[in-house]
């Protein structure tokens, strides 16, 4: 193709979006009329346009169904459960044991990740956002309440939180569980007064340079998010203006990070924090909402609140957590454990999301725990299909009417409007009885659909019960597992950029001798270390690396 035509074809693209000045457009049309190649290109684009339009036309059915489903859902009785969510959290949260285990897992992961995390800079923020978050970033002590909402519409669980530099945190839940976290000492103590049970987690081999920075608590998490938001402010921070909160005038900022929201409200005069709302997405389709409020910063707090001493008469269980710098063996161990747990599959990626994916694995991917009931599956499918069929019928029945309504809305001619409205009324008379029947049917079908959901819920509950072990055992197991997983992934994450590491284990099955799943170049090495699907390792010259 000639260069001139290449250039012309760029302009044809502008021509079809109507963004060319008239003069230019005329010039272009002249060339097109003379040039077979360019006129062919224009026709092809027009063909694409037709194809896209036809496609969109067909999809209007789906859009119409979407509208009716939404409107329908809105008009449903408010007491009815939403149709598309299996409330796993409700089940988990009913069991005290699993509740503690989940909490402990979260603490353990936070410890391990926090250990390897380095503080970000606070440069580049606009004064206002920086001003309202500075008190949070610089406070030496803080007390606050933390309301954690696990299930929308259910009451929140409220914790009392206390924070004291360097990196100490106390968290109390209704006197049931007290967690004291002291990263300087490398210890986490969890007390359960009712059971007179204590768990001590000892963090071992902590590199000195991390002691200052590691703070494992929600306060730290908020600080981390604020720092991240500041680093990325142009894209992620949005000013929300003023609002009345708890009787005070507050100014707010929203910071977004990969679909997760954090909103910071501060007193418009003192700029001290009033309320921080954030969401953490965890497990299934659940978002945990965390609201921190009732802040008091830089107040006198008694050191004894953060004491790691175990009260008398408690049964103590001690665990060690190795936080030394991860090695290659840790990566191999991680692969081994992961594949064992997930029926021979490797993680889809080596990042923090994968860790969360792994926590969910017991519920979703551990083969032995998932027993599908064929009959149930079938009945659900049938109900679902039947529902779709009826909703389709409704669509078809009401389509002419809805089109008439659209035309009526569009037309400005009084005479035409009158006609359309008349036609619409006739169409309405003709279809309304049948429509009522269909809507009634759809309403009735919701019951079997809900029942199918309920069965689904029960099945998950049964699956989950297998993990309802005694708490100490569960915690110990969780800790062992998570330590291995996090250390393996952190090995890759902590490799320097020039190590040129690659991960290609997604969709590979354990035992695949010929497929390389991970390779990297150790410091000062000529060759690469390559790990294969059977977990064997070879030293490989750069030119022989997998493509």
């Amino acid at each position, binding site marked *: 193709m000639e260069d001139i035509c290449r250039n012309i074809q760029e302009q044809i693209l502008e021509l079809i979006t109507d*963004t060319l000045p008239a003069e230019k457009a005329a010039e272009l049309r002249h060339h097109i009329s003379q040039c077979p190649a360019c006129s062919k290109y224009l026709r092809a684009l027009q063909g694409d346009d037709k*194809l896209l339009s036809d496609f969109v036309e067909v999809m209007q059915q*789906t859009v119409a169904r979407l509208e009716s489903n939404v409107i329908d859902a*809105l008009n449903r009785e408010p007491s009815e459960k939403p149709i598309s969510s299996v409330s796993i959290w409700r089940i988990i949260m009913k069991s005290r044991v699993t509740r503690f285990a989940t909490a402990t897992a979260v603490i353990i992961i936070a410890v391990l990740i926090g250990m390897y995390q380095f503080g970000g800079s606070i440069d580049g923020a606009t004064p206002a956002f920086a001003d309202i978050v500075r008190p949070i970033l610089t406070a030496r002590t803080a007390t606050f309440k933390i309301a954690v909402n696990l299930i929308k519409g259910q009451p929140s669980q409220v914790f009392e939180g206390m924070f004291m530099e360097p990196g100490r945190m106390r968290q109390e839940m209704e006197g049931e569980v007290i967690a004291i976290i002291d990263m300087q000492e490398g210890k986490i103590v969890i007390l359960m007064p009712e059971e007179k049970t204590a768990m001590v987690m000892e963090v071992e081999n902590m590199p000195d340079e991390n002691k200052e920075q590691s703070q494992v608590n929600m306060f730290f998490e908020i600080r981390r998010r604020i720092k991240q938001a500041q680093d990325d402010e142009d894209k992620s921070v949005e000013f929300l203006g003023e609002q009345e909160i708890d009787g005070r005038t507050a100014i707010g900022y929203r910071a977004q990070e990969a679909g997760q*929201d954090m909103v910071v409200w501060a007193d418009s005069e003192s700029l001290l924090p009033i309320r921080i709302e954030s969401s953490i997405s965890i497990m299934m389709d659940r978002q945990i909402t965390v609201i921190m409020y009732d802040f008091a910063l830089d107040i006198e707090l008694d050191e004894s609140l953060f004491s790691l001493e175990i009260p008398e008469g408690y049964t103590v269980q001690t665990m060690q957590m190795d936080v030394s710098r991860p090695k290659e063996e840790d990566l191999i161990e991680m692969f081994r454990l992961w594949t064992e747990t997930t029926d021979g599959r490797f993680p889809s*990626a080596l990042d923090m999301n994968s860790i969360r994916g792994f926590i969910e694995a017991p519920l979703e991917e551990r083969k032995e725990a998932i027993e599908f009931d064929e009959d149930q599956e079938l009945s659900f499918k049938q109900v679902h299909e039947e529902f779709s069929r009826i909703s389709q019928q409704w669509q078809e029945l009401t389509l002419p009417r809805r089109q008439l309504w659209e035309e009526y809305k569009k037309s400005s001619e009084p005479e035409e409007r009158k006609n359309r409205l008349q036609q619409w009324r006739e169409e309405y008379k003709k279809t309304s009885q049948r429509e009522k029947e269909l809507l009634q049917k759809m309403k009735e079908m919701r019951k079997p659909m809900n029942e199918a959901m309920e069965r*689904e819920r029960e099945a998950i509950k049964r699956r989950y019960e297998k993990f309802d072990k005694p708490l100490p055992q569960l915690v110990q197991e969780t800790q062992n597992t998570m330590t291995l997983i996090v250390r393996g992934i952190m090995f890759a994450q902590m490799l320097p950029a020039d190590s040129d590491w690659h991960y290609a284990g997604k969709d590979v099955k354990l035992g695949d001798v010929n497929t390389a799943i991970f390779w990297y170049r150790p410091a000062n090495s000529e060759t690469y270390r390559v790990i294969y699907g059977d977990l064997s390792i070879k030293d490989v010259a750069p030119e022989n690396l997998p493509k």
Partner: protein
Amino acid sequence: MNGHLEKKLVASCRNGDRSAYTGLVKAYSGRVFGICLGMLGNSHDAEDVAQQALLKGFTDISQLRHGERFGAWIGRIVKNLCIDFIRRQQFKRNAFVNRAEAGRNSSKEYPELQGALAKLPQDSRLVLMLYYFDGRSTRNIAETFETSEAAVQTRISRARKQLREILDTEGGE
């Protein structure tokens, strides 16, 4: 939809008037669906997430400060839900979702076009779907992306070009 009417509808929704929301749903369903289809690349997931977004729009409407900005606001909700959805898909296969998917393994409309759309970079697909599903208005898209109309036009041109290239190669095979 004009800003004044939109503001009125939003105000009614805040007072719990569900029928007022119907008007907003009808006005924005195309945009919401277009965003979902653009970001997720398949109509089943798009429909699910779009439904979720439109319902969330109603339950969260009290958080919308300026009623006349509903369009941009619902656009943000949709984008966030799509991002969440994609992230969830990346690290888990919910047994329940799999099953529902299996049950809805319907035939594809315009398989060639859909195949080509799937090969487009996500942002190109998104802008194209929005354009066609939201009344071919670059102004609407500019509002949704919170950017200029000129920038939108450039993106549409680029997307059309990319689509042409894909369809061209496919056809030649």
